C-alpha cells in the first residue's frame, strides 16, 4: 500500500515515513502543499497523511481541492490543535480521521491501517497470549476455559498490553490509551488496574503473564 505524507517539518516527516516504512507500507514524503496536491492527484497513492499547517497552500486547501475534484482517497489529518472545532472542521471538509500532535507513532499506524482496510471491514481479531484470550469483537476474556469479568478500564489496559505482547509498554502510553488525553499521566492509576488484572488473570494460574518493569511500565508475555 502506498502512502503519501505531506508534512513541512522534516524531522516529524522523516519519523512518520520511517515508521510507516517499518510497518510495511511504501511511504513518500513531500514538504509543501502544492507538490503534495500534485502527487496525490496523480492516483498513485492509496492514503494521504496530511499536515494541516503547511506553508503557502495549507492542508485545509489541499483537502478542499481534493474533495472539490471528487477525489475520495482516504485522508488522515495531522493537527496540532486539540480544539474540538478544529477537528470537526477537518472532518467536515472531508478528512477521514485525525491524530493530534504530539501523536504516538503507534496511534498513527493504527489509524492508517484502519483507513487502508476500511472497505473490506475484516472481522476484529482475537488476541492470544499463552492460554489467555481476548476477543476484541465480543470483548470476552478467558484464561484457559475460565471466563473473566473485566471493568472497562481493566479491559482497555489488558487489550493494549496484549496487542503489544512481549514489548515493555510505558505507563504513560498505557494511560494515554485507556484514559482521556486530558488525564494526568503522573498518577499511579495504571498500577492499581494492573494489581486488579493480576488478581483476575494470574492469580492461581501459571505461568504469570503480567510483568512489571520497574519505573517504566508493564509487559504481557508468556
Amino acid at each position: 500500500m502506498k502512502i503519501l505524507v505531506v508534512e513541512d517539518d522534516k524531522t516529524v516527516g522523516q519519523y512518520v515515513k520511517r515508521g510507516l516504512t517499518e510497518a510495511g507500507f511504501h511511504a513518500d514524503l513531500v514538504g509543501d502543499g502544492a507538490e503534495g496536491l500534485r502527487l496525490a492527484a496523480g492516483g498513485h497513492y492509496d492514503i494521504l497523511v496530511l499536515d494541516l499547517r503547511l506553508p503557502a497552500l495549507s492542508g485545509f486547501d489541499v483537502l478542499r481541492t481534493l474533495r472539490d475534484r471528487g477525489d475520495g482517497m482516504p485522508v488522515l489529518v495531522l493537527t496540532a490543535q486539540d480544539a474540538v472545532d478544529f477537528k470537526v472542521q477537518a472532518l467536515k471538509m472531508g478528512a477521514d480521521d485525525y491524530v493530534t500532535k504530539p501523536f504516538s507513532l503507534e496511534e498513527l499506524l493504527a489509524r492508517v491501517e484502519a483507513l487502508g482496510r476500511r472497505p473490506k471491514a475484516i472481522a476484529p481479531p482475537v488476541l492470544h497470549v499463552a492460554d489467555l484470550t481476548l476477543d476484541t469483537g465480543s470483548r470476552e476474556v478467558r484464561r484457559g476455559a475460565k471466563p473473566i469479568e473485566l471493568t472497562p478500564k481493566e479491559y482497555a489496559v489488558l487489550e493494549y498490553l496484549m496487542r503489544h505482547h512481549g514489548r515493555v509498554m510505558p505507563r504513560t502510553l498505557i494511560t494515554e490509551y485507556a484514559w482521556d488525553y486530558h488525564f494526568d499521566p503522573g498518577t499511579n492509576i495504571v498500577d492499581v488496574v494492573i494489581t486488579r488484572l493480576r488478581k483476575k488473570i494470574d492469580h492461581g494460574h501459571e505461568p504469570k503473564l503480567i510483568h512489571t518493569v520497574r519505573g517504566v511500565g508493564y509487559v504481557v508475555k508468556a
Partner: protein
Amino acid sequence: MQTIRGRLTAWYSVALALTLAAFAAVLYLDRRSASYQDLDRSIQSEASLTAGMLAESYRARGVLVRPDSAGHAVLIPDLSALLEAVPEFLVITARDGSLLFASSDARALTFQKVEQLRELASAPISGRASGTVQLGADGPTIRYAVHYVSDAGPQFGAILAGANVRSAEVGPAQLLSTFALILPLGLMAALLMGTWIANRALTAVDQIITEVREITDGRSLHRRLAVPVVKDELGRLVQTLNQMLTRLERNFAALRRFTADASHELKTPLTVLRAGVERAITTPGLAQETLVTLEETLQEIKRMAELVDALLMLARADEGIAPLHREPVDLRSIVTEVQETGELLAEEAGVTMEVATPAEPVIVSVDASRIRQLILNLVTNAVKYTPVGGSVRMQLGPANGRVALSVADTGIGIAPGDLPHIFDRFWRADSARTRTGERPGAGLGLAICKWIAEAHGGQIDVVSRPGRGTTFTVVLPSAQR
C-alpha cells in the same frame, strides 16, 4: 422609567406642558392689563364727558344747582336725568364736599359706601386723580377717576366716575377657564404624539440591538449591520458599530491564528521528541535506567502538550471563541464513566469512594467531553487532597429546576484566605502538599473547571473547612425546556 422611549415622552410632555402654561399665563396677564386699561379709559372719558357736559350746561343756563325739599343743594332735574344714562358709579360733589348727584348704581349702595365715594370725590385736590378702592368691607372693588370741576360755576367740586373691576376680570377669567380645558387635552395629544415619535425613532434602535446580539452571540462576526440610507444619528451609530465589528472580527481572527500558530510551533517539537523517545523505548536490550529515563521523558512530553492545550483553550475561552459541542446527554452516564477511574484512584490512595445518582435520567445539553474533563478534575483533586481512611462522595441530583453535581471529600480542606483564589490560573496553595508527594499540576485545573461550568451557563461553588473537607458543587441548566 427604564426606557429611553418613556423618558423621551415624559420630557417632551413636561416641556410642552410648561410651554403651554407659560403661554396661558402671559396671555392671561396681558389680557387682564388690557381690560384694566379699557376700564380706566372708559371711566376717564365718562368723567371728562360729564365735566364737559356740566361746563356746557353752565354756559347755556347759568345755575345748575337748586335746593331740594330738604334744603340740600342738588343738580337740576333735567341734568340729573341726562346723567342717569352714564353707567355704573357717577358721583358729583359740591365745592363744600356735599353730594350734588349720585347715579342709580351709587344710590343703591349703603350710606357708608356712598360716603366713601363722596369723600374720595371731595378730597382737596385740583386736576385729576384715579385709583382702586374697595367699598366697605364687603362691597365691590372699583376703579375710579376724579375730575375737578372748575368751569361749571362756583358750586361744583369734583366728579367721580367709577366702575366695578369685575367687568375687567370676566374676560381674562374666561380665557383662563378655556385654557384649563384645553391644556389637559393638549397634553394628552402630546403624550400620544411623543410616544409615537419616540417609537418611530427607537424601533430602529431595537432592531440594531437585536442584530448586534445575533452577530456577537453566534459565530457570525463576518456579518455587518445594514446601513440606513439616511445618514442621521442612527446611520452613524450603525457605521460605528460596523467598524467595531470589523475590529472585533480582526482581533478574533488574529487570536485564532495565534493559537493555531502557537499550537503548531509548540507541538511540532514535542512530536519530534515523542517520536524519538517512543522509538528509543522500544529498542530491545536497553538498560533499566535508560528505560526509566525515557518513560519519565515521555511523561513530561505529555504534560507539556497538555499544558499547551490548556493554555490555548483558556486563551480562546477568554475571547469567547472556544465553542462547545453540545448534545443531550444523560449526566448519569458521564458520572458512571468517571466513577471507575475515581474508584481506581481512591483505591490507590486508601480512600473510599461513594457515588449517588438518581434512578431517573438526568438529561442536560452539554459538551460531554468537557463535562467529563470537569468531573474527572474534581474527583482527581478530591482524592489527591484526602488522607488515607477518608472518603470522597460524588452526588448527582436536581436542584431548583437545575442539575447539581457535587464532589465532597473529607480531606485537608482549603484555608479560608485561599478560597477566593482557587479558581485563578496558575494558583497553588503554599500549604497544599499532596499525599504522595507527587509533583503538583500547573494550577490550571480549577480555572478550566470554572470555565467549563460557566460556558455551559452553569456555575461552580466551593465550601471548605480546613481539616474537615471540601465540597465542590457544579450547577448546570437542565435540558428540559
